[in-house]
């Protein structure tokens, strides 16, 4: 794979970038801060005995005007990428979002609108060269309207529907779209929250994601246990959902 990773400097993105770099795939990093990017690029470069220095460019999901240039830089550095991975996004608890309307605006804009715009840029580039792989992080929170993730979950629900439709529409043209739905994963994003049962770690999720990309799967629940949990949740009647606090 020749993969561009938006959000590849931290958390699950970091773990995916490492996994790809260590097995010899080419990687290009996109993130918001230059110092963070250079350190992560150096880390990836050192993880493989024979590799060219890993490239990087600034890209911020809050600044859609920069998406095209960032992807062009990745294209030039990789000699044409064939995979795009998006792990970046914003998160806050429901309580924090309810208390901060401006952050709510930013979060839904980044997680839904701007992520869709970024994917459109990436999709067009991939399709011009006969397809490839697009893997984007949605969330189990988008599967059902739930009290603790009302706002965050809705931003991911929109994204999940977009990704599913993208896969239906362009699959025949060689583009595989993977919608990743992680459950609770112990990363910097969730630091400070109490991990529920079946909480995953970034390395485990990265392994699942890379495998699903290799197999061109359209959807992935990770850790796997969440597929079962969400199956139950999706079928719970409304009156039950109204009662429980999950």
């Amino acid at each position, binding site marked *: 794979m020749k993969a561009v990773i938006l959000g590849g*400097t*931290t*958390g699950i993105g*970091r773990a995916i970038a490492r996994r790809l770099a*260590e097995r010899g795939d080419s990687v290009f990093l996109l993130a918001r801060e230059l110092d*963070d990017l250079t*350190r*992560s690029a*150096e*880390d990836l470069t*050192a*993880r493989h*005995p024979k590799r060219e220095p890993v490239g990087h460019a600034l890209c911020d999901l809050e600044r859609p005007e920069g998406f095209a240039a960032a992807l062009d830089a990745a294209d030039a550095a990789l000699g044409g990428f064939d995979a795009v991975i998006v792990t970046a996004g914003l998160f806050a608890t429901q309580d924090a979002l309810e208390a901060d309307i401006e952050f709510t605006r930013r979060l839904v804009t980044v997680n839904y609108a701007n992520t869709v715009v970024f994917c459109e840029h990436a999709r067009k580039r991939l399709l011009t060269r006969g397809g490839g792989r697009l893997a984007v992080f949605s969330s189990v929170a988008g599967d059902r309207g739930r009290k603790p993730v009302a706002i965050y979950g809705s931003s991911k629900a929109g994204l999940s529907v977009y990704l599913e439709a993208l896969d239906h529409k362009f699959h025949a043209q060689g583009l595989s779209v993977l919608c990743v739905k992680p459950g609770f994963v112990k*990363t*910097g994003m969730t*630091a*400070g929250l109490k991990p529920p049962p079946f909480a995953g770690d970034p390395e485990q999720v990265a392994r699942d994601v890379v495998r699903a990309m290799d197999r061109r799967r359209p959807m992935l629940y990770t850790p796997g246990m969440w597929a079962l949990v969400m199956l139950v949740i999706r079928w719970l009647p409304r009156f039950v959902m109204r009662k429980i606090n999950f």
Partner: protein
Amino acid sequence: MNPRTTPTLSGWGRLPAPGVEKLSEDLERLTRGAALTRGLGRSYGDSSLPAKADDLVACSRMADRILGFDPETGVLRAEAGFSLVELNRLFMPRGWFSPVTPGTKFVTLGGMVASDVHGKNHHVEGCFGAHVRSLRMRLADDSIVDCGPEQEPELFDATVGGMGLTGHILEVEFTLARIPSRWIHMESERMPSIDEFLAGLGRAAPAFPMTMGWIDCLHRGRSMGRGILMAGRWAEASEAGELAPRAAHPLTMPVDLPNLAINDLTVAAFNALYYWKHLRRRATTLVAPDPFFYPLDAILEWNRVYGPRGFTQYQCVIPRQAGAPAVREFMDLLTKLGGASPLCVIKDCGPEGRGMLSFPLEGTSIAVDMAVSPEIQSIVDRLNEFVIAAGGRIYLTKDRFTRPEHYRAMEPRLERFLAAREKYDPHRRLRSGQSVRLLGDVA
């Protein structure tokens, strides 16, 4: 406060203290205003525990990037949370290994510096700190400085083995060692008594870069201190062949065993089995690095065998001048005081390093696990009194029960360390449970 819901942190010995750790990939930002940084929490006692429940404890675990590696010289620079597990996984296949490794690979570089860890090769290579070229640190006043053996040497010497009390270690640069293969040539020998053991260690030290011994600490009388001496060196490529060691698949201890699982009977049975499993008196084998360096890492969370009561490790070094009789007397005292333990390790240490509070000094180091019991304080006191009289000292990384007056009595270098601390942290912003207990910091 409800003890069931109050969040706690604990060291490897599982005695908890109220507190929480903050995690982030950005250690530089995370350590601003923090009282303490901890890594993977493998120190046994209270050195990685907060002095107060609301002290900000930064956890370095997510700050784990390699910042540069020079394949010509072996110089590696990484963030402080980079672990030895990752180092081994990535660099052993490329012919490099940590110059010094402790008995577990679940430690971070920052922790290795703060504890100035030593390993089986101490008599040849010294402590980890001897191989460190540079540290980037956040000091108590929130400034960020670089130090090393030549740059800010006072800060460097106070930090190496300084238990995190001089500043937060952000980045570590050190030199890896070249290894000729991924196998260890090991010679092991059954030792019927402590005197033969000491003689055996003495013989092995000049011949092998790595030595250590396991002691059956329940056996008394003429065969007191019997055990197995292990000496090794990296196998040459020609001896090792092409095969790579199989990747280890560790088991996990799934539950706490009951407190009584470790008792005189079970330990005596384990020790006898372990001793007599070594059928021939002498054996030469080719072993993989993992079982050689990290036998206990084969079972994740093995500390749960001691049960919910928790445990501690007593590790001291008896100086060479005190001689073999002192070591024999110490073993005699140790076996008399009881404390059934399947783990008792003996090792010859080389000369003292430059870290102001670094543990090893030329002599014999003995480490023994002990379950926490109502008698633990008096056992540690008795052992410490012996060690003070012999001119030895204890290892802070393992300690939870030493009294401040005992520590002062065994640590003539403390004044120098305190002076450095006065200079770099006059308001004692950096502190731990251990610094409150031993150095009188205010909680």
